[in-house]
């Protein structure tokens, strides 16, 4: 059985199409506390501690209140080609959005709760930058 996919219109800042396996976090990620060399999340009490962000379509609920050091963390990942393939944030703040734009990591918002609960189960995401369309593909195991 082939995997189901869902397409939705989103708001995004991007310079090209991108895709990646979903890495869902129910907490925001502070890139300053991601190892620039291994791309592993270092925050002690973070649910994704030890997971690598490189190439992933990172889905987070909120960038609100994100630390001013976000930009440097993401930049350090970028210089080692360890950045996520995109960041999808349900509730953005200017700090995380400008960090992503400056580091040329596509950032997406305008997703709803339904999207978040689908993404939580895993799968992959494809962003059509020009058309502002985000396609979610369920993981095959999930759809069997």
């Amino acid at each position, binding site marked *: 059985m082939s995997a189901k996919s869902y397409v939705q219109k989103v708001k995004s800042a991007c310079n090209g199409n991108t895709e990646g396996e979903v890495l869902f976090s129910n907490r925001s990620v502070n890139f300053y506390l991601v190892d620039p060399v291994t791309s592993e999340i270092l925050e002690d009490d973070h649910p994704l501690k030890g997971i690598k962000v490189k190439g992933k379509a990172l889905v987070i609920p909120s960038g609100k209140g994100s630390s001013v050091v976000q*930009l*440097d963390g993401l930049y350090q990942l970028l210089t080692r080609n360890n950045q996520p393939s995109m960041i999808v944030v349900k509730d953005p703040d200017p700090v995380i959005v400008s960090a992503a734009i400056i580091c040329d990591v596509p950032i997406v918002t305008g997703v709803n709760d339904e999207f978040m609960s689908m993404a939580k189960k895993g799968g992959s995401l494809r962003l059509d930058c020009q058309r502002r369309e985000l396609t979610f593909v369920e993981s095959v195991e999930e759809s069997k």
Partner: protein
Amino acid sequence: MLLTTEEENVLNGNFGIGKSNAMKLLVSLGEMFDADRLIPIKRAHWAVSGQEGDLFFAEKLANSGARVSVVTTTNPAWDSSLSDLFHVDIDDYERSLLDRTIEVSDKLGVIKSFNCTPYLYKDVPSFGEHTAFSESSATPYINSVYGARTNRESSSSALAAGVIGKTPNYGLHLDKNRVPNITVDVSAQIKDDFDMGLLGWYLGEILKPDDVPLIRGLSSEMTEEGLRDFGAMINTSGAVSLFHLEGVTPEVKRISDTSLWVTSREKITVTSEDVERVRKKFTERGGKINSVYIGCPHSTIPEIMKVNRLLDGRKVNDDVKFLIFTSATNLKILGENVKKLASKGVYVMQDSCVDEPVFKFTEGGLGATNSLKAAYYRKRRNQEFVVTTIENLVEAAVRGYI
């Protein structure tokens, strides 16, 4: 977002690549946050951090020809003469970050104020004025105390706004987002500036990001230091960029019945026990100290003269480095007093932030400060702090322990 023909031209590079790069960031931000247009600003504050990510963007702008078009002040870095004064080994990488910060600042044409309290003297917006201010103490201060308008800008978005002279119209620029959504009743006794900092820290931990609290029950006798510290702490332990203090701040003064103004019935009460818990958490340690840090955010002249007075006829213990951080302007005005303080063992310094490598000589030991924010940031540099009032800091500095 609607752009004028001129703005389109800037975006398309007709006025140079530098301006186009700055405009791209503003337009992308505007589109992400549903801004309808760009609005003009007269000033900006760039909280440059001296980190590579910040410098990467600033150099990209500067090297492609961008220059600021409105007054843009800068956050502190560190005074390069301090490494000799304190005999600190600064490695090439650390030195290069400072050199790059100064060089890119000159290229961009920003005012090298190197001061985190521009809102007190040199970059002061008026009521209702739209601005783009980054820096955690500056954003709540100008929004709340002056009734000026800024979002919680990143250093990069504030710099881009300084280059273009405009900022996207969303968030706290709009009337509807400035209305309080939660009431805070303070029954705790808040008796001085230090207590204001404790209260700010406590509320930052409790409130949600972007909450706009209406705070009641505080005395209307407020100092600029108390308001500065309240904002700095509420926006360090949390992310609150606008607060309304009943009887104090201008936007609430125009409201006859504040209970009808708040958009929700949510209410929290802050008791003396709540504030005392924060005090206890930060003050209960003790022991021999190697340093005192005052001035995060930067100290005012009355604070520095207070230290001078409290130390009258006495000297700081030889094992303690007593560090006061302030602006170059204040240092100049203090004149001979700086020498008097130096003779008592107090270093009054310009242009510097507590969170810089030149202060590594106090790392690993116990310090004392009046700033919860300083304690929070210097923890990353392996230094623990006891946090207490200026009066207690002076006594501890003379004794050598706390």
